[in-house]
């Protein structure tokens, strides 16, 4: 057993990446996710419409944060603000009781808003209207609260559009990265490099099947979500498909990029894990983006799943049109261009006749390593000569 322990330590010492994963990553992950893991909603973006819109900010108080008031607008405008993701709560004033519209697709924010409104209503019932305006009893009628897009506040309604993205991340990133690095490990990547195939053909030929499988996965997940879990699909299928294609573009590119910087499948899985886990935890899939500490939140905006979440929830739950989703689409496209360019450049370099790498005693690949010289001439050693 001692021999095994020593051997394992020696191997581990030489595998710097695994060692870093084991020691550094847990610390980094704990810090990052520690700041990210919060369901607490401290700010609820709110808009107000109707003749008394200007007074809403004064009446609602924290944690509602009124970002826009439009006295000339009505309920239609307020609904549009929620649909387009500009606010989580909209207050419509006018004749009769004020209407409070809540975006149910922002589950935790919606729950927090309902809780605040209930607390305020209870307080008003005991002490009079909110804000201590006891001198005007009954002047602030209780609002009519309506939850839009996810009236039952079902968790599955908001999770499944996001989970569709997670499935794509897994297929796109992990499976693709393994597929390419397997070529390198088995020595067939070098075989491809000398074949009369253009790097572009190899690159596209490699990812198109994964693209097709991932697209099929997506269709199955969304189909099951709608059929089995009753998740609504209110928006345009074409807009959703366009978002999915862009998102796949990025995730497949990340997969190829990972494989091009990995020597073996183990390293590829490690890297893919490091890319996938933050996407699950920091993209707004589980924790609301607004609840993630600002120091960590910037990472969320570098993750493609963040934007796909916006698109899938926006289209499926709120029927958001392309015009209101231009921002996540644009950012996803930008990420796609950057990642895909890097991936194709790396892949092209992999397939080009390899220039021997400086500082490396052996070139990459099993057969090339065998060709690398050693300090002594093995054929000339006594053992080799006496073996005959």
């Amino acid at each position: 057993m001692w021999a095994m322990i020593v051997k394992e330590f020696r191997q581990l010492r030489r595998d710097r990446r695994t060692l870093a994963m084991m020691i550094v990553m847990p610390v980094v992950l704990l810090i990052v996710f520690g700041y990210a893991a919060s369901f607490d909603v401290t700010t609820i973006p709110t808009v107000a419409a109707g003749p008394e819109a200007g007074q809403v900010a004064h009446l609602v108080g924290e944690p509602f944060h009124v970002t826009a008031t439009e006295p000339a607008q009505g309920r239609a405008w307020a609904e549009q603000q929620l649909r387009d993701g500009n606010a989580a709560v909209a207050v419509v004033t006018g004749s009769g009781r004020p209407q409070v519209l809540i975006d149910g697709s922002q589950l935790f924010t919606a729950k927090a808003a309902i809780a605040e409104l209930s607390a305020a209503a209870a307080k008003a019932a005991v002490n009079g209207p909110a804000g201590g305006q006891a001198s005007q009893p009954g002047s602030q009628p209780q609002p009519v609260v309506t939850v839009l897009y996810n009236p039952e506040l079902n968790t599955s309604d908001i999770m499944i559009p996001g989970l569709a993205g997670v499935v794509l991340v897994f297929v796109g990133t992990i499976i693709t990265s393994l597929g390419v690095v397997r070529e390198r490990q088995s020595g067939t990547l070098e075989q491809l490099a000398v074949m009369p195939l253009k790097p572009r053909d190899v690159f596209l030929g490699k990812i198109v099947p994964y693209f097709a499988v991932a697209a099929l996965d997506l269709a199955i997940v969304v189909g099951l979500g709608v059929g089995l879990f009753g998740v609504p699909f209110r928006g345009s299928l074409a807009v959703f498909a366009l978002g999915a294609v862009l998102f796949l573009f990025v995730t497949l590119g990340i997969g190829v990029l990972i494989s091009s910087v990995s020597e073996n499948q183990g390293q590829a899985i490690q890297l893919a894990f490091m890319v996938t886990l933050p996407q699950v935890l920091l993209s707004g899939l589980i924790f609301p983006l607004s609840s993630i500490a600002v120091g960590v939140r910037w990472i969320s905006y570098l993750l493609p799943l963040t934007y796909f979440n916006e698109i899938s929830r926006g289209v499926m739950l709120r029927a958001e049109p392309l015009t209101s989703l231009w921002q996540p689409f644009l950012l996803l496209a930008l990420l796609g261009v950057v990642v895909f360019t890097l991936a194709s450049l790396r892949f092209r370099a992999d397939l080009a006749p390899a220039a021997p790498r400086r500082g490396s005693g052996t070139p990459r690949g099993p057969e090339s390593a065998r060709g690398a010289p050693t300090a002594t001439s093995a054929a000339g050693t006594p053992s080799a000569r006496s073996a005959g």
Partner: protein
Amino acid sequence: MTAPGAAESGGDWWGTEDVCVKFGDTLALDRVWFRAEPGRVSAVVGGDGAGRTTLLRCLAGALAPASGRVRRPARMATGYMSAGSGVYPDLSVTENLAFRATAYRVPPQQARERSAELLARAGLDRVGDRLAGQLSGGMRQKLGVIAAMLHRPDLLVLDEPTTGVDPVSRADLWWLIARAAAGGAAVVLATSYLDEAERAQDVLVLDAGTVLASGTAEQIVAAMPGTLTITSERPAGDAGRRAWRREGRWRVWDPAGLDTEGAVAPGSRDVVMPDLQDAVTVAILARELALVPAGQESR
């Protein structure tokens, strides 16, 4: 004028001209000149780390040399089997060949006929549906060679096609190699088996990245300097540094002629006619002895 490290095509031979390859600070190939002619089989021999695979990778276009020139045909006319067969273990035999045929644009009908013929001759016709990863080592090597020669390349580069292969499969492989050469291809193969290299028309002996000898096996043997004797005991003294064990006895090389200073009496030795294995061993030994002065050797 072609830039250093560039590949050229055209002409009636393929090979390298003054090629150098460096891995970090290590010179893997040092000014290597090599010529492979159409219709001939050339064997590149040498020990581990001699630079055989590096030379073959340069020839196939998988490795760019630091300097010198590589003459090779277009990719479409080059066939390459990397060490380890280079076939996809998770594709069947016929799927592997179909992939190669498509990549090299071999017409489907022609690809089917040639695949069937080569598979039958190599004894693989009954395992066409079997995954390459489930084949024995020898069968996989044969598949690798067939895949590399399927499109009738002008230059066929095979890295250790017969390593770890049983004698029957080795005979099949040599049939395939001869068939490719008979079809007009210049075949270059790396091997560590010197008896096998004797079957090739041309031999290149590499050691530590340098060319020790080249020519036909007969030419290399004839060019061996000194004499070779055989004895039952390893001689003492300086002669011992020039001795190696083969087939249960000791062979002693004397660069200048019959060794009269060895501990073993000259009368107890027989002078033997060297073969390629002896000539290669002597070439490597001569280089080592030139590099390591007497009394400084570590053995």
